[in-house]
Structures are given as C-alpha cells and as structure tokens.
C-alpha cells in the first residue's frame, strides 16, 4: 500500500477518534461515557481480584464466564459445543451464500471513490486499502469481545484476542470476497455465471449430505443409548453432561465431524485460548486459520471484478441509510396501494405516524394479516388433527406458540427499527410536524409495538388453540407415546395436578396462563421499544440509525456495546414488575398461606405489567422533553449552516 493511502487510513482513524472526543463536550455524551467507564472499572476490578475504585469485592462476586463454565467448555462439553457452533456456522454460511442479499463488498465512502479512483494508485493498493479500512473497527470489536469473555491472565488475554481477531478478520474478508464474487457473476456471460453458481450449490449440497448423514448417525446413537431417566438434580445434570460428551466424541470421529472440519478448524483457536493449551498447541490451532486469512486476502486483492461499481452502489446505499429502494420498485401497482389500515384525513396525527412507520415494514392490511394468522393456525393444527402428523407434533406447536408469545418483546425491538431510529434520519422533514414531544415519542413507539403485539397475539392464539384441541380430546397424545416410552420419560404430565392445585379445570389453565403473560409480554415490548428510542434520541451519535443496522464485522464492537447497555437498562426496567409479582406470591403463599388460584394469574400479570407501563409513561415524558429540546446540528444535520 502506498504511503498516501496509509496516511489516509491513519488520519481517518485519528479523525474518528477526535470526532468521538469532541462529542464528549456535550454533557449527555460525557455522562454516558462516565457511566460506561464506571461500569468497565467495576468489571475490571473483578478481573484483577481487587477493586480499582478502592474497595474489595466479596469473594463470590464474579463477572464474565464463571470458572465452572470455563472448565465445562474446555473439558467435557468442549467438543459438543464446538460441534454446535460449527453447525450454526455451516447453516449461516450456506444461507448467506444462497441468498444474495447484503453484498458487503469493499466499503468505500462515496467521497473516497470519487477521489481515489481517478488517482494514480495501483488497483492492488486500492483494494488492499479497502480491506484494511475495516481493520480499526474489527480491532475495536475484538477488544470488546475479549473484554467481555474476560480471559484469566495476560497470556490467555493475548491468546483470546488473537483468536477472535483471526475469526473476525476471516468473517470480514470472507464477506468482502463473497460481495466481489457476486459482483463478478453479474459481469460474466450468463452461461459461465450459471456454471459458477452450480459449482457452489453442488459444493454446499455435498457438505450438507455429509452433515445430514452425520446428524442421522448422532440421532441413532442418542436413541440407542438414551434410556436413562434424567432428573433435575446435580446427578441428573452430571449424567446429561456425560451423555453429551459421549455422543459428541462419537460425532466428532464420525461423518458429522468430517463434514464440519473447516468450521471446527476456524473456531479451534478460540477454544484453544479458553482451555489450558500450551503455546505449541496454540500455534498449531492458529496455523490453518492464519493461512486461510492470507489466502482470503490474496483472493480479494487479486479479484478481477470491476469492484468500483459494486462499491459505489454500496456507498450510495449507506449514504441513504434506508432500505434499498429497488426492493420497493418491483412492487406491482396494486400492491403499492395496499395500506395496513385506512387513514382518514381527520383525527389524531399520531395514527398517521404509526401508519407510515408500519408501512416501512409491511403494507398488507391488518385484517388480511389477522385472517392469514387464523388460517395459518388451522393449517398447522389440521395435519395433527387429521392424523397426517404424529400427535407429538403438538408439543412443537406449543413450544412455537410460547416462543412467539415471549421472544418478540425481548428481541424484535432490536430488529424492527421502524420508529425514531429511522425517522431521525428524516429530521428536517418530521421536526416541523405539529405534535408535542411526548406525543411524537408515543406515536413513534406505536408502529413496532403494533407489529410485535400481532406476533405475540399469534403465539397466544396458537398456544391456546393447540391446548384446547388437546383438552377437548381432538388430539390423542396417548396414541403416540412410543417415543416418550422408549426414552423412559412420562411426556409433559403434571398439568392435571397443576390445574387441580390452582383450582381450575385443565381446559382453563393454559388460557389463564396466557392471559397472565399477555399484559407482561406487551409491557416488556413497550419498555424495550421505549428504551431503544430513548437511546436513539439521547445519543443519536452513538446508536446506529436507519432500517439497515450495519452487520459487518467492523461494526460488531459498536453494536455489542449498544446491545449490552440497552440489555442492562431493560433488566433494571423489568425489576419493579418482577418484584411486585414475587412480593405478591411470597405474601400470599408463605405469609398469609392462602393457596394460589388460577383466576388470580391474569391479575398478577396486570400487577406486574403496571409498574413497567408506568416506566414507559416516564420514558415517553423524558423522550418527549428530549425531542422538544433536541439540537441535532452536530449529529444529524452536520455540514450545512
């Protein structure tokens, strides 16, 4: 790389650091940084055994991975865990190569492209610059990951840092290589491009034939030996760990291990760093991934593709920070006129903002969605009712329903970004709208909440529907107890006893539990969305804005920090609700010794949801006041006076 490009790289990093430091002149960023640093100091204090802030921590206070977990990971569960991660990587990589989305090729900014492409710099240098450009971000992410995994001792820290760096750099280079390969396909004659695609698909298919054969062998192994009864005790867990270790050893040496070898090699340095490996073992673990890293670099630097166009398109998309508009252009004239719900021109303006933001995700009318949801539930249950599928599938549907009811409030607010996180980029457009701050904040929260509420509602209906079919005897589980018997397990049992203990018929138990969980689930969703929006309003310079949250390896550290901060805030936010529910149960069951009745559960759910809702109201107040006073000149409107 030429000195000029190196100069540009170093100055860009310096510029970003200076910009970040300048931001600290604003009190909110300074306070946010101090809180973050305080937390880091507290964390580090536990690493070094002695507090850096001047006091000793109790001996049993631990952060990061506890030593027992580390022993399990580096010991009996190591191979099972490595196989699991390798399988996930294989699945992710397959989907990533099959679905040509997110062409994360060389990431040049528009100005870099316009200034560097006409400059007298060799093509190899330019691509190398594009590769190295993401390294500061990757190194930051590696430091954050290393920090949170908290290796014990200096050597372990270095080993973990190096292992994570190799892995993330490979991820970064592989994504660039894939982007360039996709761009190259677009340049090739149609026949040649199809040959390349077929070659890729054949390789993936061969790998998956081996993986499926391996998984089948593991399943047969588990079924053949899985007659032991596992109880919820230390002995039971030890048995489970022993069984998992045994099956993992067999799988490791069998076709699954062979099929996943490339992925096992990739994660070997990380596991070597966690375990008590000798320097020689570490070097051996690092050898192949390091060679792969060099090979990836050569693959990219020698790429013959006209990367300029791909990079320019990427830069344009990044500068717009919105969904690629081309996705919308393919919509038919009829679909363009779909609306989630009709919007009249008179009434509360908040509804207009929710209407607009829902359309950022989907345009299908709500009534169509509702009908489709009901039809889907019927479609899912019908094969079990008609005997096309074994009755045990109801458990899968029950777990699916429960997961849909409980997971979206926790995770969807991170991915659904159709609120202030998108609208702040249109600040000039939305700021003059005639709404007070609090109303604007609530209007923005409404759209993701509506979409999450629909998912939660679908999960609840599925759960209640399946359970009602079971209780009414439409599905006969007893007729399909074969698998459960071979395992020596007694099915899901205990529900009849639980219903009797709670004083209701089994038919009513699940609907009442669902009624208890619904308000809690929805309140958690509101709190989570509220916190995300409050963070975006308070720190627009820190929180990633736009619908397409950047997923590149170089963004991992930044995303991880934001995720950690918001997760901790959410945890604190949920505490009052959990406290109220616990206090009520303790008082009733242990102090007053009044038995719990199932009809109390919905009330308990509402009691737990109320403090969370009160927090949401408070957050809306704070968010509204921030909106009214927000001066986005530096973060959002920089560059024009």
């Amino acid at each position: 790389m030429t000195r000029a490009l190196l100069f540009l790289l170093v100055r860009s990093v310096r510029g970003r650091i200076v910009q970040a430091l300048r931001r600290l002149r604003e009190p909110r960023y300074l306070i946010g940084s101090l809180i973050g640093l305080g937390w880091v100091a507290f964390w580090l204090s536990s690493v070094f055994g002695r507090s850096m802030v001047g006091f000793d921590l109790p001996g049993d206070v631990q952060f990061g991975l506890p030593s027992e977990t580390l022993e399990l990971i580096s010991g009996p569960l190591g191979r099972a865990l490595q196989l699991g991660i390798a399988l996930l990587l294989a699945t992710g990589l397959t989907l990533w190569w099959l679905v040509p989305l997110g062409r994360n090729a060389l990431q040049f900014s528009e100005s870099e492209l316009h200034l560097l492409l006409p400059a007298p710099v060799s093509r190899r240098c330019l691509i190398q610059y594009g590769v190295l450009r993401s390294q500061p971000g990757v190194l930051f992410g590696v430091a954050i990951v290393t920090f949170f995994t908290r290796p014990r001792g200096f050597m372990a820290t270095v080993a973990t840092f190096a292992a994570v760096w190799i892995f993330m750099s490979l991820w970064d280079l592989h994504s660039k290589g894939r982007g360039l390969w996709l761009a190259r396909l677009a340049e090739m004659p149609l026949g040649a491009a199809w040959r390349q695609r077929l070659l890729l698909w054949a390789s993936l298919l061969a790998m998956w034939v081996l993986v499926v054969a391996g998984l089948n062998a593991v399943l047969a192994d588990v079924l053949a030996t899985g007659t032991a009864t596992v109880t919820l005790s230390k002995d039971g867990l030890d048995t489970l760990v022993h069984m998992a270790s045994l099956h993992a050893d067999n799988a490791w040496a069998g076709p699954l291990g062979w099929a996943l070898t490339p992925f096992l090699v990739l994660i070997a340095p990380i596991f070597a760093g966690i375990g008590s490996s000798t320097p020689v073992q570490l070097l051996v673990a690092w050898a192949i991934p390091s060679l792969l890293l060099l090979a990836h670099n050569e693959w990219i630097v020698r790429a013959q593709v006209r990367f300029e166009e791909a990079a320019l398109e990427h830069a344009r998309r990044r500068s717009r920070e919105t969904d690629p508009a081309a996705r919308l252009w393919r919509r038919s004239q009829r679909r363009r006129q779909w609306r989630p719900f009709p919007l009249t021109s008179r009434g509360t303006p908040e509804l207009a903002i929710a209407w607009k933001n829902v359309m950022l995700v989907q345009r299908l009318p709500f009534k169509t969605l509702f009908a489709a949801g009901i039809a889907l539930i019927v479609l899912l249950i019908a094969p079990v009712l008609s005997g096309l599928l074994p009755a045990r599938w109801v458990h899968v549907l029950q777990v699916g329903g429960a997961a849909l009811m409980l997971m979206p409030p926790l995770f969807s607010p991170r991915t659904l970004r159709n609120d202030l996180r998108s609208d702040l980029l249109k600040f000039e457009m939305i700021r003059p709208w005639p709404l007070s701050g609090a109303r604007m904040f609530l209007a923005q929260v409404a759209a993701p909440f509506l979409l999450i509420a629909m998912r939660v509602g679908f999960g609840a209906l599925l759960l209640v529907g399946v359970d009602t079919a079971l209780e009414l005897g439409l599905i006969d589980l007893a007729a399909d107890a074969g698998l459960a018997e071979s395992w020596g397990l007694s099915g899901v049992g205990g529900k009849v006893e639980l219903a009797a203990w709670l004083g209701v018929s089994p038919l009513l138990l699940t609907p009442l539990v669902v009624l208890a969980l619904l308000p809690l689930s929805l309140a958690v969703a509101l709190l989570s969305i509220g916190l995300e929006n409050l963070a975006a309003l308070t720190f627009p310079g820190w929180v990633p804005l736009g619908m397409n949250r950047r997923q590149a390896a170089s963004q991992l550290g930044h995303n991880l920090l934001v995720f950690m901060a918001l997760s901790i805030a959410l945890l604190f936010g949920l505490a009052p609700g959990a406290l109220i529910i616990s206090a009520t149960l303790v008082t009733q069951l242990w102090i007053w010794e009044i038995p719990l009745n199932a009809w109390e559960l919905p009330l308990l759910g509402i009691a737990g949801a109320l403090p969370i809702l009160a927090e949401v109201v408070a957050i809306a107040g704070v968010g509204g006041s921030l909106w009214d006073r927000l001066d986005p000149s530096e973060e959002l409107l920089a560059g024009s006076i």
Partner: protein
Amino acid sequence: MPVPRHCLSSGYHGPVNVLIQIDELVKDYAERRAVDGLSVDVAGGEILGLVGPNGAGKTTTLRCLAGIVPPTSGRIRIAGHDLSEEPVQARRKLAFVPDEPHLFDHLTVADHLELFARLYNVAESALLAEQLLRDNELWDRRHAFPGELSRGMKQKLLLSCALLHSPKVLILDEPLTGLDPSAMRRTKRTISATAAAGAAVVVSSHMLHLVEEICGRILIINNGRRTVAGTLDEIRAAVPDLSGNAGLEEIFLRATGLDDEP
C-alpha cells in the same frame, strides 16, 4: 395586530398582519456563531428573499424559523405563537421545504399527501391533494416511490405536501434547485399565489434573478449578521456607490464585500 418594523421605518401605516417575527436570533454551534442577533418581521402577503454567501447562516436561520433547531437565544413568533412556548400551535401554521428533498422512501407520492393530510387535519384533503398533484404534474406518478422520481419531481412533491394545509407561513430553502425551466416558472407562480392568498413567505436562494423577480423585500446576511434589508430600491439607496439601476447580483457582491473584481 403588530406592525412590521420595516413598515414603520418606511412610514407605512396601513393594516398589516405580521406572521413572522424574529427578534435578536442567535444560534451558536460548537466553535462558531452561525446567526448573530438577526431581527426581521414578515407580514402576510409578503415574500422575503434571504440571500448571502455560502456559510452566511441562511439555512440555520430557516431551520430555526421552522423549529428544526432550537436557537441559542432570541425569539421567534409564527402567526402570533412563540415557537419555543407554543411550538405545536406555531407549527400548525407553517410549512418548510428543505433544500434536500428527504422523502420517505417506502411511501408513494399519494401516501405522502395522505400522511400530511392527517398530520395537519386537512378537511376535503383528497380533492386538494389531487389538485396539487395535477398542478405539479405528479398525478400520473402518484403510485411511484421517491426513488423512482427525479430530484425536481421530489422537490415538487415536497412543495405539494407543504401547501396541502394552506400554511400561513411558508419557508423555502433553495426551492428551484433541480427544476426544469417550466417547473421553475410554475413554482414561482405557486410561491407568488401563496403569498397573494395572505401567507408570509421566506425564500432562501442563490438564484438572485429568482429573488429579484418574486421577492418584495430582500434580506442580505453575511457571517450570520444582517448586512442590508429592504426593497430593491431601498437597498440601492442604502449601499453606497451603486448605480440607480444596479441589479441584485451587483448589490449582493457589494454588500457582502465579495466584489473583488477591479
């Protein structure tokens, strides 16, 4: 009804309706003062042209006026409502068309007008929206997404959205950028018609011929400060060494000290 200062100074005593009042507006950024004690009134029916060199503080002034950025100090009243004390009431009366047409990429042209109709509670909005789209030659593209429109079309859509609720105060930042000559003429007519209907209009532009053509009064600012203001004749009289028929370009260069030609 308050009377604008420039009317008092020029001896005007007729009935006037001040819709924009800016008093001692100051806006500081981290390291510099973008607007420095600017005061100006704009009456209903009047078009004020805001001109100045790059970095003079025009966009910041307009953003403060539209309530997009809060001023460091000073007071802004829109149709009698203080922008910091009654922001919602003030915003109901105003419309802002920024220089960069940042539209919602996922909404069609028609969606944008539906959205604005509800935001501003516009009665009979469908008819009005159709009329505006037809006037701006967007009716045939009403189901198009912004990504499928040219810059000029986006600009026209923004103007249509701004005019939908018949604002009392219209603020335009570089309204003619990206428009073809026919659209320019139409936009100029629209701006004049809006003022003729009683609205106060502020137009910022580097196209001095536009300012000269449609603005009744001109405010030249430099380094965030008012350099000179008034009608073209008043400015000619105020700036020394200007010929009686000097155009705005000459006045601008002289007033801002940018006239470095021999």
